């Protein structure tokens, strides 16, 4: 509890410091629009996975970030990542589980699991090779190592962006790879994923943009991309408000009933074309707030 209060205080303090590059009109897609040299920004992200095939399930992943523009083409960020999970009888077989849960052998598999914890710290480096405003398209490379008591993860991205109509319309795509090691109470998991995210956002009036974004997610066993476990699609809208002092982005992605499972274990987690298990929920929500200081 004390830990949670401390995090809230840290977040509020950072807000009080008083938003914009690294600013993205998308919930999950990164753009090649970086924090300018010498500028700093505080950003809060709350990502919610909500609802599985049955029971109750919600998993909040929060991140508190400080972002720096080292040069106009190099942005560095530091994150504190924490989470809250609340699950009860949500598994396909009626047991409690899902992303963020970690039941030990002594826990009741049909009991409620509720936990708030600090998960990891991470650092993000983005280097821009082409500027979307002056080159024919934007191109940036991203690397994020993440480490915690039970988790280690390396994420990389290739970020592509193309603007149209006085830069009011932004089209962007990310190719994202993640390699993770997670130590649970009962098992050690090594997994990789390869995501293709793409979307568009249009600034329809001053300050306000809205659009759509899609995610094709592929999960693999181990640190490589040889043993595919499943493939899933997510699709949903985003809305963004940006001004001189701060910006806010909210987005929702719904898991489409187009999943493919490549092993019996994976197929056992599929209900009505959607996969749940230890990775996914029916809906994903994102809220991000950024404040330059």
């Amino acid at each position: 509890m004390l830990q949670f209060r401390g995090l809230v205080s840290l977040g509020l303090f950072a807000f009080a410091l008083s938003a914009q590059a690294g600013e993205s009109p998308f919930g999950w897609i990164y753009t090649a629009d970086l924090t300018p040299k010498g500028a700093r920004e505080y950003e809060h992200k709350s990502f919610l996975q909500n609802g599985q095939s049955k029971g109750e399930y919600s998993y909040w992943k929060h991140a508190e970030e400080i972002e720096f523009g080292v040069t106009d083409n190099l942005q560095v960020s530091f994150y504190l990542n924490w989470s809250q999970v609340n699950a009860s009888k949500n598994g396909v077989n009626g047991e409690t589980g899902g992303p963020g849960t970690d039941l030990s052998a002594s826990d009741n598999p049909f009991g409620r699991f509720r936990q708030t914890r600090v998960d990891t710290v991470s650092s993000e480096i983005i280097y821009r090779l082409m500027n979307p405003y002056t080159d024919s398209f934007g191109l940036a490379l991203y690397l994020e190592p993440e480490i915690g008591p039970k988790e280690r993860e390396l994420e990389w991205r290739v970020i592509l962006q193309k603007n149209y109509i006085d830069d009011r319309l932004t089209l962007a795509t990310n190719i994202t790879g993640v390699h993770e090691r997670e130590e649970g109470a009962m098992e050690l998991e090594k997994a990789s994923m390869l995501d293709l995210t793409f979307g568009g956002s249009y600034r329809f009036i001053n300050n306000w943009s809205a659009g759509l974004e899609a995610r094709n997610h592929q999960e693999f066993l181990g640190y490589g991309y040889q043993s595919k476990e499943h493939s899933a699609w997510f699709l949903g809208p985003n809305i963004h408000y940006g001004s001189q002092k701060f910006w806010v982005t909210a987005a929702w992605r719904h898991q489409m009933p187009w999943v493919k499972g490549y092993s019996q274990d994976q197929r056992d987690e599929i209900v009505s074309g959607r996969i749940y298990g230890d990775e996914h929920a029916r809906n994903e929500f994102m809220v991000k707030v950024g404040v330059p200081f």
Partner: protein
Amino acid sequence: MLRHLLFLCLVGLSFHASAVDYMTEEQAQAAMMPNLVLSKVAVKLDPAQRNQMEDRSGVHEPFDEHRVWKASTGQYFIVDEVVGKHEKIKYAVSLEANGAVKQIEVLTYRESYGSEVRRPEWLSQFFGKTSKDTLKLGADIQGISGATLSSKHIAQGVKRILAFYDLVLAQP
């Protein structure tokens, strides 16, 4: 879940954006065309002229031809707006009688970064430019670090005004 989302939105929206209006049109006229009597120019652009202005400048934002004034010396004063990162950037351009840029002032700028677009040393790059110049960022106009979008759009906006002069004001 909803309570958490609402809390985050309220915290975010409690920060109010402050508009920065540096000059009114009247103040800009007085500063850029001192001691001159200006009269409004009655112009009605046709679709073909608008298309040509867009083709030459790359600016899609509609051009308001009702903000054009002429002095007895033959010089012009024109107010225009282009798209900024979050809001419109309003600026005024004065032209010599031969259509070359005399002076530029940014009247409204409401962005987190890049207020350097108001600096005389940046704006002075445009002085003397005509419709024959490209006004391209990185070529004959240098951009501003951290305000690439704003500096690109202002350069394109000035290019559009020069195209307007060429297509309309310079015509007999």
